[in-house]
């Protein structure tokens, strides 16, 4: 009996200790990020552009707006596509064999290394277009978004009770009205939560942008030209030799982390709201 008790304490202590080690590491990241990076955030980071290499000062204005453009366009491409795909799985395909294959494949697609999506888009868009571009970066991010949106929308629409659909059909409503005016209306809070989650997932993606939207020093927001993004700029600056670049990279890291967390928390709030209604 004593031996078992000792074993119990040892086992429980080890898991508690390892939990605290893990939690410590994770909070350490956030704390050290804020501690070392927060004082590099100032107005000029948001209002100025890069200065010539090695000079002090400068800012990330182009990178911030570039990021917004690429992510915004990716959302326009990826979210409607994903929502329609999810609607198909939940409302038309249901439990058919092929639908289940699509479910599994799109589930698996959310775990494919994002750099591979970057290479794929490089071969399919960048090479034929003859250069890096905003549109290529957005397509890469959209491809990352679509499977996430498809599986989440599928799951959310499935939670809408069937009685609602049946009631609408009984009133003589055609299927598309049932889907858009009854099912989607019922699930709207969940859909918003999925959209926010999908944006938070692609907001910090770097690898797929390396060979698609690339990077640029000339402030231009044209769709067929390369563009600076926060993530790629942060990577280039961090790997560069100048202290002023490193300071801007710290600022970029802080902006990026907090905007991703913001979207993620907003998505959670919507999803709690859905369950508490």
């Amino acid at each position: 009996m004593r031996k078992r008790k000792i074993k119990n304490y040892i086992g429980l202590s080890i898991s508690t200790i390892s939990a605290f080690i893990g939690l410590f590491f994770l909070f350490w990241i956030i704390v050290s990020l804020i501690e070392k990076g927060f004082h590099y955030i100032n107005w000029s980071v948001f209002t100025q552009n890069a200065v010539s290499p090695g000079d002090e000062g400068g800012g990330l204005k182009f990178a911030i707006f570039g990021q917004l453009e690429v992510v915004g366009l990716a959302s326009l491409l990826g979210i409607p596509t994903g929502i329609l795909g999810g609607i198909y799985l939940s409302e038309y395909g249901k439990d058919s064999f092929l639908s289940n294959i699509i479910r599994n494949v799109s589930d698996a697609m959310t775990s494919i290394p994002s750099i591979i999506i970057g290479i794929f888009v490089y071969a399919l868009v960048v090479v034929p277009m003859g250069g890096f571009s905003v549109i290529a970066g957005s397509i890469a991010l959209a491809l990352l978004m679509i499977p996430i949106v498809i599986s989440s929308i599928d799951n959310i629409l499935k939670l809408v009770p069937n009685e609602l659909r049946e009631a609408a059909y009984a009133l003589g409503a055609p299927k598309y009205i049932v889907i858009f005016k009854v099912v989607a209306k019922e699930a709207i809070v969940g859909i918003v939560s999925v959209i926010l989650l999908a944006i938070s997932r692609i907001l910090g993606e770097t690898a797929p942008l390396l060979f698609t939207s690339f990077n640029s020093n000339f402030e231009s927001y044209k769709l067929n030209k390369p563009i600076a993004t926060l993530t790629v700029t942060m990577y280039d600056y961090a790997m560069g030799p100048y202290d002023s670049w490193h300071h801007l990279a710290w600022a970029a890291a802080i902006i990026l982390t907090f905007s991703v967390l913001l979207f993620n928390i907003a998505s959670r709030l919507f999803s709690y709201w859905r369950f508490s209604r």
Partner: protein
Amino acid sequence: MKKKFIIIDFFLKHISMFFAYFTLLVIAGLFLVLYINSKDAISHFGFFSFITSNVWSPAFDKFGGLIALVGTFLTTVISAIIAIPIALGIAIFLVEICPNFLKTPIGIAIELLAAIPSVIYGFWGLFYLGPLIEKYVQPLFNSTLAKLPVIGQYFYGYSSSVSLFTASVVLAIMIIPFTAALARDALKITPDLLKESAYALGATKWETISKVMFRYSKSAIIGAVLISLGRAIGETMAVTFVIGNQDSLPTSLMSATTTVTATIANEFTEASSHLYLSSMYLLALILFLLSFLLIIGSKMFFLRKTGN
């Protein structure tokens, strides 16, 4: 009126169907594009000599994938060795030990940490953790583990701010929250009835956890671990910052090397010859197949029990 309904319904059904099938198209397209572009490297070097050759020389237009593949394999395995016990500890703590009022806040904190982009982990590793490892861990290794016979050399090193070890630690920290969240969900599925029966038989808490809960959710936990490995294998930014990007096989934990993802991230846009580019496509193809098989495998393993 009726006709209009039918037409709209028809279009909605087929457009949404197209987008659903689109994912299958993308997966097939991915494989095809990678395969077609890597064909030249395969026919020029041969698949098996490519993956066993440690020559990666743009100057002589000769390429082999061994260094990158070994780097990927080692970072994945070492990070898994570090991360999995800690992640399981967190999962056990969250499900069984933690007082109820702390479960939700800690759980949410861990999920939020899993949401932090990998580029941040890599950046943090380069500017914060790497220098600390060079300053504290490496002298510690040099004066202790490195003195051991035979295996000692694998711990010896100098100026190892960026190294196999740093990359593995950063990768481990990155996958801990992800693995912990999955393992927690896996442990949670054990029915209370089973746990209560174990306690009624006089089992201690640890016996209930290790003999009842782990046994019940074994396949789900293995699935969770495999998915985490899949994530570690394809991770780019967390590794690229801190692996050192050196085209040589690592001689110790503390030496700089490279991985498949780091090689592609650093050299893809600079490839000067067709064969160079094609070799990188081949690396990407291998990575794609490895991670896809890992994910599909774990899904099948996973689904077999939780599905019904």
